[in-house]
């Protein structure tokens, strides 16, 4: 009885025949109003966009300093000459990401589980997880990259890798695991206690309950915020540039910029990051919108 409140939430969620909100239809918040209002709205939007961009472009290109800015940042020749090499170097950034991400996902899940263990016996485990996440969320990632990337190889310990790039990636793993652990934890806490009760009442132990009932539901719910952290990680792979000798996209752009006295290579590097992060970000938006519609429709997962 005292815990009966939990039942109500599920009732609202599961019962058929509940009034359903109108379907969300279009997923884009930018384009949705247009579709709702029809052809006239589209025409107005197109005209308005052309006018705004036209005025902006005209006033920028007419300004006295535009030729200097264009040559320094948007130089077509510089771009053609440097972009291929930067794009090739960007594969390193992708590699850092691909190596770091699986470790982050696994280590962060371990941290989140450690932090969700109940009871006084597990206090030290919980405390360790909390101290860890507090520390690495509180320290700038670039600082961790510096400390590990320069510090550990300098120790010259036997059996420990000397490659600064290795330690740069380790720093990313340590730092991002703290953030991702918090995302997982939010997911774990969002699984209703009645799910745990149902699993435990069937004689499943604490670990199988976590493994088969809680974590699968938790992870499903936090996919959008996890992808957000993916986007951030892909950008922060540029931080490894501070400690490695072999240049990745950002460092290569810096080198080219210094050699050519032109900033266009940096813009080229920025473009490479956008090629990856913008589609990822749009995917996150789409997933978030879909998740919200499902929740509002009361369809469960």
């Amino acid at each position: 009885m005292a815990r009966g409140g939990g039942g109500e939430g599920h009732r609202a969620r599961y019962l058929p025949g509940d009034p359903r909100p109108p379907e969300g239809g279009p997923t884009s918040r930018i384009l949705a109003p247009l579709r709702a209002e029809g052809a006239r709205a589209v025409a107005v939007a197109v005209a308005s966009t052309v006018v705004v961009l036209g005025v902006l472009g005209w006033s920028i290109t007419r300004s006295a300093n535009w030729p200097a800015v264009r040559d320094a940042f948007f130089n077509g020749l510089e771009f053609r000459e440097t972009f291929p090499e930067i794009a090739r170097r960007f594969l390193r950034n992708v590699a850092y990401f691909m190596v770091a991400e699986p470790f982050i996902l696994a280590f962060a899940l371990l941290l989140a589980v450690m932090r969700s263990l109940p009871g006084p016996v597990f206090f030290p485990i919980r405390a360790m997880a909390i101290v860890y996440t507090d520390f690495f969320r509180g320290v700038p990632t670039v600082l961790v990259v510096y400390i590990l990337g320069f510090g550990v190889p300098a120790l010259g310990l036997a059996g420990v890798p000397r490659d600064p790039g290795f330690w740069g990636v380790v720093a990313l793993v340590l730092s991002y695991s703290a953030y991702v652990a918090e995302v997982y934890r939010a997911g774990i806490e969002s699984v209703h206690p009645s799910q745990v009760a149902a699993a435990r009442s069937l004689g499943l132990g604490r670990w199988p309950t976590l493994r088969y009932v809680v974590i699968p539901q938790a992870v499903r719910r936090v996919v959008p915020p996890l992808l957000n952290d993916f986007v951030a990680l892909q950008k922060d792979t540029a931080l490894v540039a501070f400690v490695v000798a072999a240049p990745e996209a950002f460092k290569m752009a810096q080198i080219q910029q210094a050699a050519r006295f032109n900033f266009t290579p940096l813009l080229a590097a920025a473009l490479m990051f956008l090629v990856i992060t913008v589609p990822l970000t749009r995917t996150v938006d789409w997933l978030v919108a879909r998740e919200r519609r499902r929740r509002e429709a009361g369809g469960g997962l």
Partner: protein
Amino acid sequence: MTADASGGAADGVALRLEGVRKSFGKLEVLKGIDLTVGEHEVICLIGASGSGKSTLLRCINLLEPVDAGRIFVHGEEITAPGVDVNRVRRRIGIVFQSFNLFPHMTVLRNITLAPIKALGLPKAEAEGRALALLERFGLADKKDEYPDRLSGGQQQRVAIVRALAMEPDIMLLDEVTSALDPELVAEVLSVIRELAEGGMTMLIATHEMAFARDIADRICFLDGGVILEEGPPERIFTEPREERTRRFLQRIIEAGRL
């Protein structure tokens, strides 16, 4: 069971409660419950919301630790320190008001999860057992559906099957029809009736008085955390001895539920 020899198993007692007490903070929900349930006996717990029915069932399943008192299953004390709660729970099935099916698993997987992971049954055997139960309760065609594709009545029947797949000695049913639309109640009650006819020992917390009267061997009226009155359904419903029982039943009749 190793403890069966200690008495109780042979005397036909499935479940015995002695002075069970439970508080949540300052609120004492159970104030000393004594109850003996015979094998194959069906007992209905009735009483107002907050009288302690659900808490009592959750205590028997060890989902809530008792503050005082002892609970025996077939003579073995399950409230003793050091008892393996997972082993105890495998013998006691519980079905909740809110179904609590696992939404990310198909019906079949919902049912086979615990037999495979807790009992260690081979997958084929667990599935065979699950399919036989689904067949028996008219749910065989739903085996590959996810819970949110089922009606409330179907979900609750699956939840019952999920508990039965562990082949428990005792079933605890916690207001299993309270979250259902009225037209879906009957299908769930008929499942429970079939279990009773099959000889399942059951402890049923319910607001369905007509059903309780029909199915129960004994009715226990809970009020203020104690069993205020118990007896055969005919007597409880026609000539209750306690004033509070009378008033409770009066309210039920006025609400058109009996």
